């Protein structure tokens, strides 16, 4: 990993924060843009879930991770704390692999 990548990530992330809090301050963005931006986590995180569960590189696969992440999803749905969800996901996957 290059330091340029690390610094670009830091600078980029800080910019997204400082633009909202300090630069734009109390001004408003268009309501339609605001509605779309609030949906970014839903679309992006859901995509990351399926990518990390069902793919290896460019191949679609079904393996132990599906069991682990399925269990994690069930725990998240029952509003289990973040840490419980993560540990369950990892533990069930490891267990399924070991069997």
């Amino acid at each position, binding site marked *: *990993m290059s330091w340029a*990548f*690390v*610094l*670009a*990530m*830091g600078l980029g*992330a*800080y910019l*997204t*924060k*400082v633009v*909202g*809090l*300090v630069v734009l301050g*109390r*001004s408003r*963005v268009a309501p*339609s843009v*605001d*509605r*779309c*931006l*609030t*949906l*970014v*986590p*839903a*679309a*992006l*995180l*859901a*995509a*990351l*879930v399926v*990518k*990390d*569960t*069902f*793919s*290896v*590189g460019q*191949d*679609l696969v079904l393996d*132990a*991770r599906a069991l*682990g992440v399925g269990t*994690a*999803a069930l725990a*998240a749905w029952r*509003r289990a704390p*973040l*840490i419980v*969800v*993560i540990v369950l*996901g*990892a533990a069930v*996957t*490891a267990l399924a*692999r070991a069997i």
Partner: protein
Amino acid sequence: MSDQRTVVVASATLGAAIGVFGVAFGVGAVAVGASVLQACALSLLVFTGASQFSAVSVLASGGSTATAFGSAMLLSARNTVYGLTMSRIISGSLPSRLVAAQLVIDESTAMAAAQPERSRQVTAFWVAGTAVFAGWNLGTLVGALAGSAIDPQVCGLDAAFPAGFVAMVAPHLRTSRGRWAALLGATICLATVPFLPVGVPILLATTGVLVGLPPERDRRAALVVP
């Protein structure tokens, strides 16, 4: 129990939970070739968990640094919206607001938004932000140091990432639009994974947010969870 104390206890608990999550990040970052110093620098400078995890996840699948950076910045874009919201309660000198900006993340915004009055909102923002900052960075250090000693496959750590994403996405599925955006994003990603360079499907998945374009006709109806 006073509300001030409730905020401190809740923030400390949150900080500890985030710390464990930070350990998973540290392990993951070292696994994709970051040095211990780089993993720690990422958590100190970037300090927005979903973006960091997304970048490492894209790199781990063999994606380019450009797509890793792109997905991280798209995820961090919501911090701009949080910043806009927090600018209504965080006043003070420019230097203090520049410091506050680094703490604008999901947890600090949520904790502040949950308080009934302004002075408590300000306290909640700073206390939660500081607790999460401490937990996240300590966790990253521990994970990065332990990283090379841990086989992610055996411990199921490769599933810790999607499990964490599941936990992070859950609150966003409470509205029908959130569910549609998630379904669209997930479908677009899976459908394009076999054909596009690694990481690009994640960027394409953000087009799922376009379900937010039309105005909501009945706000109440949109918030009802079946």
